[in-house]
């Protein structure tokens, strides 16, 4: 899948990480992205939203996409600047149809232990796009807070 045009990033803006299918590696990749948010002085609320959506994407990719198969890899790409954050997560699974996921907020589904990840990504990010197969998700979060001056990059 190509970068969604409306996300406003180019290939050259993106940092790519290829990681094993495990929570430790996912946590490390998350820490790199969260570190970038901290460097750009993102607010606590926006940081909460991005961390939440990223964890849902990573958890889905590990658990449902790669089915905890250690021989498979995840690809995480990201671009963080003071105005917005773009994150892509891709797994090696067969994918799924996001629209087929039952509404976790329906009364009959409230007690289900799982199934909230996709809904939360949509709720907390500005835009979410899946590829046709459903094994790659692109997420955009606009940083609506007025950013503090960012230190110049070395």
């Amino acid at each position, binding site marked *: 899948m190509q970068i969604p045009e409306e996300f406003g990033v180019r290939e050259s803006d993106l940092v790519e990480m290829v990681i094993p299918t495990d929570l430790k590696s996912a946590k490390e990749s998350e*820490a*790199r992205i969260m570190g970038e948010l901290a460097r750009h002085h993102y607010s606590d609320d926006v940081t909460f939203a991005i961390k939440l959506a990223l964890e849902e994407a990573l958890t889905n990719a590990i658990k449902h996409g790669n089915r905890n198969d250690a021989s498979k890899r995840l690809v995480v790409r990201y671009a963080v600047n003071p105005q917005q954050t773009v994150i892509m997560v891709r797994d090696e699974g067969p994918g799924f149809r996001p629209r087929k996921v039952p509404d976790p907020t329906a009364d009959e589904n409230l007690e289900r232990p799982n199934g*909230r990840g996709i809904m*939360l990504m949509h709720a907390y990010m500005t835009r979410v796009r899946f590829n046709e197969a459903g094994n790659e998700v692109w997420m955009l979060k606009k940083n609506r807070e007025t950013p503090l001056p960012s230190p110049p990059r070395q």
Partner: protein
Amino acid sequence: MDAQEEPGNAAAFSAAPVGQPLRISVNSQARLRVITLAGAVQLDQAAELRNRLVAAVEPHAPDLIIDLSELAFMGSTGLSALLAARSEALRHGGRVHLVAPRPAIAGLLRVVRLDRLFPIHDRLTDALKALGQTAE
């Protein structure tokens, strides 16, 4: 990305509320347990949280109060842990009440409508009273 910047960035994140590791403490009272969660439920800590919450439900003291006042972050895996605790409590005739979630966590509970399943109180004393207990 400039690799030399990464340690500083990671350190900045680790120092932020949502970057803190989860801390769990349990206060046992005669007929219930008060669990206090602090820090953030990190990706690799949800299973531990689930196990600790479920283990805190005992047949002779099946009610749980989960104090969220010091919790800065949790995702859906953390929510699943709360649901597992509730399921275990119900199995033994108990209840799970939540106390003082921060605005971001309260918002998360509302978004997924779990505020319909978990009574939420502003103060621990209110939760104790609702469960027929007094502070010890």
